[in-house]
């Protein structure tokens, strides 16, 4: 079974803090993704990575950066957290073929005060 784990289920941070969200997958997938999920807005892609040290901007990259130093790990970084970044963050991974299923982690509920 593919397993995608995220470092925290719930996180509370203060405005201006630097926030790291970690994601690890155990199936040697090439692609990894970060989404945010907000009520009424669905899933929106922040960044994705198709290989180690490679990244592509998604639809809403502003205020975020990512790091992929190892194939199994993909980190989302909020350089200076703001209240409008309060959201559910979902990590996913997949094999290289875009038609392959994306496997999602359980999500991290981030609250920025």
């Amino acid at each position, binding site marked *: 079974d593919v397993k995608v784990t995220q470092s925290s289920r719930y996180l509370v941070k203060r405005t201006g803090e630097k926030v790291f969200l970690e994601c690890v997958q155990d199936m040697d997938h090439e692609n990894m993704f970060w989404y945010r999920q907000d009520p009424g807005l669905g899933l929106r892609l922040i960044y*994705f990575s198709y290989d180690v040290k490679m990244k592509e901007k998604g639809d809403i990259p502003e205020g975020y950066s990512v790091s992929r130093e190892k194939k199994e790990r993909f980190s989302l970084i909020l350089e200076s957290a703001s209240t409008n970044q309060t959201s559910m963050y979902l990590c996913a991974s997949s094999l290289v073929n875009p038609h392959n299923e994306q496997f999602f982690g*359980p999500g991290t509920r981030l609250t920025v005060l």
Partner: protein
Amino acid sequence: QQQVKQSPQSLIVQKGGISIINCAYENTAFDYFPWYQQFPGKGPALLIAIRPDVSEKKEGRFTISFNKSAKQFSLHIMDSQPGDSATYFCAAIFSGGSNYKLTFGKGTLLTVNP
């Protein structure tokens, strides 16, 4: 610009009824159309998917109908059960070389009453 429009936003169906969720897309370059199912507290999981050269795909009680000329596709859940209560997302994928793009609809919250 929303490239995949999903409706309705929420849907209530009686047990045994048919649930229908519709999606429309704009970009004719999309070449794969998956549906994901998400239960509360969980990440989405792939339910069923279809290529644009197929008009219908059925897996158990779940069927995707695809109308390429209208740029529309829909999910039908036959004999809906309370366990089907979840949020459903349609999606569209463009996979041209390294220019990979997956766009999700905004989701439909399905409630199946017993």
